[in-house]
C-alpha cells in the first residue's frame, strides 16, 4: 500500500516537475495575452480579442511541442512530451489509428493466447515441489531381433528400487483407471474419473492429503479393505466439503469403499476418487500392466546415476517366454515425458501465429509510412526549427510504441475473455495440473511482444521519414502532395513480403482443409444417418442381471414406432476400443483383432448388409454360439470363405462360436481408425464371467422421427434394476467427436489463414489507396491528356502487380520448406498437394488484385481540373 502511494506521488511529481514545458507555456501565454490586450484596446470585446490573438498565433499546442523539441527537457520529461504528442497524432488520424490498433490487437491476442498455452504446457507443466527430481520409469527388454520393447515395471520392481534410499526418495505407480469413467454412487450415481495408485505414488509428487492419510502399503495387499481418497473438487461437490467425511463410504462400480483422506485442490481436479490399487500375488511381479511408474530422485542424482543403480537391481524378464530376457531400466525426466507430445502442434501453431504477427506488423509499417508521408510538412517544420534527427526518430518510435501498446491492451483483453474458447480449440491435452491462464509470465511476454513489434513496424518508417524533411520544398508547397512518394519502393517491398508470408500461412490452412475434407469422405462402412446410440448401465454388476436387462431393453426399444431396428454393442466399440480374446480358429489361426460383443439387431441398425452368409439373429442368442466376421478377417484368416468355420477361446471355460456371415469393414474408431480383423459375437451364456462389460444401445430411427433423451430415460428406468442412463448421441455426433482433433487443428489453422488473408487485403488496399491519393495530380494530368479510365486504373495497379507476383513466387518457395512440419497432421494429403497450392495462390492473388483495384478505380473517376486544383 505504502509502495503504491509512493509510486503515485513520484508519478505526479514527474508530471508537475516538467519545468521546461511550463516555462514555454507561460511564455507563449504571455504573448497571446499581449496580443489580446492590443486587440481589446482596438475595440474588440475580450472574447473576440482572445480568439483573434490565438488565430494569429497559430496552434498553441503545436508551437509548444515544437518549442519543446528545441529546448528539450529531462529524459522522462521528453518522453512524456513525446507520449502526449503521439496521442494527439493518433487522434488526428482516427481511421489510421483504428485500423492499426485492430491489426496489432489481432496479432497480440492470438499470440498471447497461444503463449499462455505454451506457458502451461512447456514452462510450468509440473506444479510440484522440485519438479526436476521427478522421473518416469519403464523396463526395456532387448529382443533377440535387436528391437526393444518397453513395459511398465511391476510393483515388485518398484519396491526393490525403493530400497536404494540414497538414489530414490519415493516411487509408486498410479493412473486413471479404465477406458470409461466409473460409476460412483453417493446416493445419485454418476460416471466419474477414478484413479488408482499404489503406496508412495502421491508422496512422489509431494502431495499431502489435507484430511486423513495417503495410500499405505497395507491398503495394496490382496483382500485388504477398499479405501480411497477424495479429490478436492469432488469432496466439495458431493460432500459439501464436510470435514467429518473420513470413515464414510461410497460405492464405486457397486462396491463399497471407505474414505480415508481428501487431496488438496489443484492436483488432478478432474479425478473424483483415488483408490488404492491392489496387487494379487500373480500381479505383484508382473510387468506390463500399463500403469505408469513415477519416482522422485534424491536431490542431485542424475538420470544416468539413477539408471545405473536401478539397473543393477532389475531382474531379467520372463514375460515373453520361458527363457529370461535381460531387462534394463528406461528412465526419463517427467518433464520430457509430459511435454514430448506438444512439440509439433505447438511448433505449427507458433509458426502460424508468428506469421500473423509479422503480417500485422508489415501492415502497420505500411500504414505508418503512408501516414508519415502525409505528415512530411509537419516533420519538415519540426526538423527545420531544430529538432534533431534522433529526436524525430524517437518521436516516431514513441508513436509506434503507443500504437503497439494500444493493440496489446485490446489483444490481451480479448485473449483474457476468450481464453477458454481459444484453448479449447487447441488440440492438445494440457498437463492436468497446469491449466492455461493469463499470468505474469504471459503478460511479460505480451509486453515484450509489444516492444518488439513496435520496433519491427516502427523503425524502418521512422528512419525513412526522419531523413526526408526539407524546408524549402514544403514551405513552397505547403499542404501540397508532391508526385514522388518518398516511400513507394518501401511500400512495394512490404506488399511483396506480406503476400509471401500470407501465402505460407494460407497454404497451411488449405492443406488442413483439404486433409479434413478427405477425412470426412472416408467410407466408414456403415450408414450413420438416423442412427442413435444410448449409454445405459445397471448399477448391479451381476452378469445375468445385466445381460437380461440389455436384452429386454432392446426388445422394448424395437417396439417403439420410431425405431426401425435396435441392438447393442460393447460400449468400448463406440470409442474405437474393444476387448481382445485372441480366439483360435479351427484352421489353427489365432485371430488378433477386437472381439465385439453385440446383441442381435446391432448390425441391422448400423445399416450393414452381409457380404456373404447372414447376420446374427435372435434365435442364435439362446445357443450363443454364432459369430460374424468382417471382410478383413475373412481374407486374412479364411481365404475369403469363413462361413462354417469355428472360433474358440482358450482357458478353463472356453467360449465357442460358429461363423455365420461376413460383413464389410466398419470403422468404429472413426475415419482415422485402423481396420482390424473384427469379430461380432453374441454374449456367451455359458461363460458368464466373460460378460462384465457395458453395452451401448444402438438403434436406427425412422426418417424424421426423433427420440428424445427424456423418453429413452423413462423406458430405460422403467425396466427394473437401478440404472445409470448416460448420453443419447446420434452416430453423426460420435463421428464428429472422433474427428475432433483434426477438426480443431483445421479450424485453428483456417481461422489464422483467414486472418492472414484479411490482413493482406487491408495491407494491399491501404498501400494502393495511399499511392492513389499521393498521385492525384499525376492522374489529373494523365486524364487531361486524354487517358481513358481503364488506362488510369492500369497505371495505378501496375505498382501492385510486381510485388504481388514476387510475393506469390517467394511464398510458394517458403511454403515448400515450411509445410513439411505439418506432414504428420495431414490425412491422405501431401504437403505439396497441387490442388491446394493452386487454389491458395489463386485466392490470394485474386484478393490482392481486388484490394489494389478498388482504390485504383477511384483514381479513374478523378476529375482532371479538380485534381490539378487540389495542389
Amino acid at each position, binding site marked *: 500500500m505504502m509502495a503504491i502511494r509512493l509510486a503515485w506521488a513520484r508519478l505526479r511529481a514527474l508530471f508537475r516537475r516538467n519545468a521546461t514545458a511550463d*516555462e*514555454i507555456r*507561460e*511564455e*507563449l501565454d*504571455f*504573448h497571446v495575452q*499581449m*496580443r489580446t490586450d492590443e486587440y481589446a484596446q482596438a475595440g474588440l470585446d475580450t472574447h473576440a480579442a482572445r480568439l483573434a490573438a490565438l488565430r*494569429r*498565433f*497559430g*496552434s*498553441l499546442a*503545436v*508551437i509548444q511541442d*515544437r*518549442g519543446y*523539441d*528545441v*529546448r528539450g527537457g529531462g529524459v522522462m520529461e521528453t518522453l512524456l512530451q513525446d507520449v502526449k504528442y503521439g496521442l494527439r497524432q493518433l487522434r488526428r488520424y482516427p481511421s489510421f489509428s483504428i485500423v492499426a490498433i485492430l491489426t496489432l490487437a489481432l496479432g497480440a491476442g492470438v499470440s498471447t493466447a497461444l503463449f499462455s498455452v505454451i506457458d502451461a504446457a512447456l514452462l510450468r507443466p509440473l506444479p510440484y515441489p522440485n519438479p526436476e527430481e521427478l522421473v518416469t520409469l519403464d523396463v526395456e527388454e532387448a529382443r533377440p531381433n535387436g528391437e526393444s520393447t518397453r513395459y511398465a515395471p511391476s510393483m515388485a520392481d518398484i519396491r526393490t528400487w525403493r530400497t536404494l534410499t540414497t538414489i530414490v526418495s519415493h516411487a509408486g505407480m498410479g493412473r486413471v483407471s479404465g477406458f470409461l469413467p466409473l460409476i460412483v454412487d453417493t446416493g445419485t450415481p454418476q460416471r466419474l474419473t477414478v484413479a488408482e495408485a499404489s503406496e508412495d505414488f502421491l508422496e512422489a509428487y509431494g502431495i499431502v492429503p489435507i484430511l486423513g492419510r495417503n495410500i499405505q502399503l497395507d491398503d495394496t495387499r490382496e483382500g485388504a479393505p477398499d479405501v480411497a481418497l477424495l479429490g478436492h473438487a469432488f469432496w466439495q461437490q458431493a460432500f459439501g466439503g464436510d470435514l467429518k467425511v473420513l470413515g464414510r463410504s461410497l460405492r464405486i462400480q457397486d462396491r463399497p469403499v471407505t474414505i480415508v483422506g481428501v487431496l488438496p485442490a489443484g492436483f488432478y481436479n478432474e479425478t473424483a476418487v483415488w483408490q488404492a490399487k491392489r496387487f494379487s500375488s500373480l500381479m505383484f511381479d508382473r510387468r506390463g500392466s500399463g500403469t505408469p511408474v513415477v519416482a522422485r530422485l534424491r536431490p542431485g542424482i542424475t538420470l544416468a546415476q539413477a539408471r545405473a543403480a536401478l539397473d543393477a537391481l532389475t531382474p531379467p524378464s520372463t514375460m515373453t517366454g520361458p527363457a529370461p530376457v535381460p531387462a534394463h531400466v528406461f528412465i526419463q525426466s517427467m518433464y520430457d515425458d509430459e511435454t514430448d507430445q506438444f512439440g509439433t502442434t505447438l511448433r505449427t501453431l507458433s509458426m502460424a501465429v508468428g506469421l500473423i504477427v509479422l503480417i500485422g506488423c508489415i501492415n502497420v509499417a505500411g500504414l505508418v509510412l503512408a501516414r508519415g508521408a502525409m505528415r512530411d510538412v509537419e516533420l519538415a*517544420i519540426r*526538423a*527545420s*526549427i*531544430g529538432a534533431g534527427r534522433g529526436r524525430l526518430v524517437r518521436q516516431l518510435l514513441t508513436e509506434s510504441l503507443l500504437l503497439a501498446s494500444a493493440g496489446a491492451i485490446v489483444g490481451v483483453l480479448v485473449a483474457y475473455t476468450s481464453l477458454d474458447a481459444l484453448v479449447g480449440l487447441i488440440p492438445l491435452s494440457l498437463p492436468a495440473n497446469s491449466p492455461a491462464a493469463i499470468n505474469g509470465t504471459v503478460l511479460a511476454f505480451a509486453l515484450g511482444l509489444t516492444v518488439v513489434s513496435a520496433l519491427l513496424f516502427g523503425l524502418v518508417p521512422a528512419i525513412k521519414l526522419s*531523413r526526408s*524533411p*526539407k*524546408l*524549402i*520544398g514544403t*514551405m513552397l508547397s505547403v499542404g501540397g502532395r508532391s508526385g514522388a512518394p518518398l516511400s513507394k519502393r518501401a511500400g512495394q517491398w512490404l506488399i511483396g513480403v506480406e503476400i509471401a508470408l500470407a501465402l505460407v500461412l494460407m497454404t497451411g490452412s488449405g492443406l488442413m482443409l483439404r486433409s479434413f475434407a478427405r477425412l470426412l469422405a472416408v467410407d466408414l462402412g456403415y450408414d450413420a444417418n438416423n442412427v442413435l446410440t444410448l449409454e445405459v448401465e445397471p448399477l448391479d454388476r451381476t452378469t445375468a442381471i445385466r445381460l437380461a436387462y440389455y436384452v429386454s431393453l432392446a426388445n422394448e426399444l424395437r417396439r417403439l414406432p420410431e425405431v426401425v431396428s435396435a441392438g447393442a454393442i460393447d460400449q468400448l466399440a463406440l470409442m474405437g476400443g474393444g476387448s481382445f480374446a485372441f480366439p483360435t480358429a479351427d484352421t489353427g489361426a489365432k485371430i488378433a483383432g477386437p472381439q465385439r460383443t453385440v446383441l442381435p439387431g446391432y448390425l441391422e441398425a448400423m445399416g450393414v448388409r452381409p457380404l456373404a452368409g447372414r447376420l446374427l439373429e435372435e434365435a442364435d442368442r439362446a445357443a450363443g454360439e454364432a459369430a460374424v466376421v468382417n471382410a478383413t478377417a475373412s481374407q486374412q484368416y479364411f481365404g475369403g470363405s469363413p462361413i462354417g468355420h469355428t472360433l474358440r477361446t482358450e482357458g478353463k471355460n472356453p467360449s465357442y462360436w460358429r461363423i455365420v456371415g461376413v460383413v464389410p469393414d466398419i470403422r468404429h474408431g472413426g475415419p482415422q481408425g485402423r481396420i482390424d480383423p473384427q469379430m461380432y459375437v453374441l454374449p456367451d451364456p455359458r461363460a458368464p464371467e466373460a460378460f462384465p462389460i457395458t453395452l451401448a444401445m444402438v438403434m436406427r430411427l425412422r426418417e424424421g422421427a426423433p427420440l428424445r433423451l427424456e423418453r429413452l430415460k423413462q423406458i430405460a428406468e422403467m425396466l427394473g434394476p437401478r440404472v445409470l442412463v448416460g448420453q443419447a448421441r446420434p452416430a453423426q455426433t460420435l463421428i464428429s467427436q472422433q474427428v475432433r482433433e483434426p477438426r480443431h487443428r483445421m479450424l485453428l489453422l483456417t481461422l489464422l489463414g483467414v486472418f492472414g488473408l484479411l490482413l493482406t487485403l487491408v495491407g494491399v488496399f491501404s498501400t494502393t489507396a495511399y499511392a492513389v491519393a499521393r498521385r492525384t495530380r499525376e492522374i489529373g494530368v494523365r486524364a487531361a491528356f486524354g487517358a481513358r479510365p481503364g488506362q488510369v486504373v492500369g497505371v495505378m495497379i501496375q505498382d501492385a502487380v510486381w510485388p504481388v507476383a514476387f510475393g506469390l513466387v517467394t511464398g510458394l518457395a517458403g511454403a515448400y520448406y515450411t509445410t513439411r512440419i505439418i506432414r504428420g497432421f495431414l490425412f491422405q494429403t501431401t504437403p505439396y498437394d497441387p490442388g491446394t497450392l493452386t487454389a491458395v495462390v489463386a485466392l490470394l492473388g485474386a484478393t490482392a488484385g481486388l484490394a489494389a483495384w478498388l482504390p485504383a478505380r477511384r483514381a479513374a473517376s478523378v476529375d482532371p481540373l479538380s485534381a490539378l486544383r487540389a495542389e
Partner: protein
Amino acid sequence: MRHATNSDQLHGTLDMLVLKILEVGPLHGYAIAVRLERLSRDVLSVEEGSLYPALYRMERRGWLASAWSVTEKGRRARFYKLTRTGRAQLDAETASWLRLTTAVGDVLNG
C-alpha cells in the same frame, strides 16, 4: 543527406531579422514579434507562434541568451538579448546577405 537545412535562405532570413532587432537591446518575444512585423512590413506572414521555436534554436546555438524579467507594466516575461556569438553571426549574415543582394542587383541592373 540530400538537403542541408542550415543553408536554408528563408530560414536564415528570419534569424537575421531577429538578431537585427535584438541589436538595440533585450526584448521579450511579443516585442520581437511586433517589431518583426513592422520591419518586414508584414511580408513574413508566418504564424506568429513560429517565432518561439526559432528563438529557442538560436538560444541553443548560443546566439541569444534569455532570462525572466518584468515588463514596464509589471508583467513577468522572458527577455532575449544578443550574445557575442550572436553579434558575430549577425555581422556574418549581413555581409553574406549584402553579397547576395548586390549580386542579384547587378544581374537585374544588367
